[in-house]
């Protein structure tokens, strides 16, 4: 329970500052200043935006399908947030102890498709419907490469428990991380990041909400707080996949410094607080990569999106699954 409460509080704070960080990242990439007015260096800009958003009217157009329209944002958020219950936080706080934790996580976050479809359908609006259609096609297609890349890690670690995966990477600092310990995982890691961008509807895969074509995609008709929940879920998904990525590939809550003979850097930088610190800083680094990609690459076309998933990522991840199996056999022998 403690991990979940921590993640809820962290998620809310994270979203406020991630939006600020995203705008600043965008600004620096585009060689401008970004928000500067509210607070020092504009740091309170999103807080002000949030206050404005909460006061907005909760508009329900007269021809929407009432009940689904109202509960769709909640379904999306619940699906994403349930995923957080399975993540460990440090060596002591291991999250939910489901034996098939990783499997359950992938199953539950795929449910947010249902909420997105519900939103698009209930809005009774062509843009929303097209947005949600694209979103579902995209999320379902990219679930296959993301699942296979996670499976490659599972083959090597031999466990579905995320805490167990973290413990296996303990002790040797950077050298113990799955990505370094098993270099075959580099390609699954790249596939994981690419499909993660698609799963959270981020650029270059933001077709479901592409402003220039679909106004806002599946959340065109939403305003005020309900729109805010959609944003919260999108950033939540980014954070969730980044934490998952850092647990699976980058050592989770383990310190990156190894123990050297008399200089036991690893022991110095491990502990209750340090565990949380390392896990979150690795995840925030991955979140930064996602923002960086967003402002660097243009949006793909629908057919390019599909062919990237089915013709390139899926075959490559199946091949990597096979190679990881061989690697595991070689490790065992």
């Amino acid at each position, binding site marked *: 329970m403690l991990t979940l409460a921590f993640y809820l509080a962290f998620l809310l704070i994270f979203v406020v500052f991630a939006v600020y960080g995203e705008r600043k990242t965008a600004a620096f990439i585009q060689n401008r200043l970004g928000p500067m007015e509210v607070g020092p260096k504009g740091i309170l800009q999103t807080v002000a935006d949030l206050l404005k958003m909460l006061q907005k009217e909760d508009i329900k157009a007269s021809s929407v399908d009432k009940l689904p329209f109202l509960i769709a944002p909640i379904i999306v958020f619940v699906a994403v947030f349930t995923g957080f219950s399975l993540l460990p936080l440090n060596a002591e706080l291991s999250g939910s102890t489901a034996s*098939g934790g990783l*499997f*359950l996580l992938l199953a539950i976050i795929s449910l947010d498709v249902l909420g997105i*479809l519900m939103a698009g*359908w209930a809005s009774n609006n062509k843009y929303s419907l097209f947005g949600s259609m694209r979103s579902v096609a995209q999320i379902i297609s990219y679930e296959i490469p993301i699942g296979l890349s996670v499976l490659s890690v599972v083959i090597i670690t031999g466990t579905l428990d995320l805490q167990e995966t973290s413990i296996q990477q303990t002790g040797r600092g950077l050298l113990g991380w799955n990505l370094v310990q098993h270099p075959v995982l580099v390609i699954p890691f790249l596939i994981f990041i690419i499909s993660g961008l698609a799963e959270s509807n981020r650029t270059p895969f933001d077709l479901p909400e592409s402003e220039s074509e679909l106004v806002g995609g599946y959340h065109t008709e939403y305003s005020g707080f309900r729109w805010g929940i959609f944003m919260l879920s999108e950033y939540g998904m980014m954070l969730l996949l980044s934490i998952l990525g850092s647990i699976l590939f980058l050592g989770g809550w383990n310190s990156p410094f190894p123990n050297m003979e008399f200089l036991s850097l690893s022991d110095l930088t491990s502990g209750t607080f340090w565990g949380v610190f390392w896990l979150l800083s690795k995840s925030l680094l991955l979140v930064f990569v996602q923002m960086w990609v967003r402002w660097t690459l243009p949006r793909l076309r629908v057919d390019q999106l599909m062919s990237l998933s089915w013709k390139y990522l899926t075959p490559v991840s199946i091949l990597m699954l096979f190679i990881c199996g061989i690697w595991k056999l070689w490790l065992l022998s």
Partner: protein
Amino acid sequence: MIQVVQYFFFILILIGVGLILWTKNVIHAVYSLALVLVSLAGIYVLLNAELLAIVQILLYAGGVVILLVFGVMMTSRMKGRTLATKSKNSLVALILSVAIFTSLSFVFSEVSFSERIELHQPNQVEDIGISFLTDHIVAFELIAFILLVALVGAAYLAKISSNE
């Protein structure tokens, strides 16, 4: 406490089933189906069948329901027709469903499920995997083969329709 949660899920399932039966709107029926399937997964969790619950969510709620929603959306809103369900032949349906219910409950009360596998609590996945690849290897391989055939068939059908 577990009993209370269990009854909560039972009530959710009843509500969902009732909505499927009485709603006129197809898309609402599909959402109610999703509610039923997820609540069933909840009951599986309470019965310590974690893996079954996960598979239930992944396949039914995440797969089948979304396929259904997609199908309904493609057919109705894209073409501008609204799909509404009607209830016809309710007498025949009543007789049929009572017959199926009695025969199924008869079967379940008579048959003994003798071939049980003990699942050890922390490693259900491991136990199931081992029994798949030892005791049930033929069934497992056959299912894999059928899935492969379905996949090839689907690819073939998609290819023909794109050539026309």
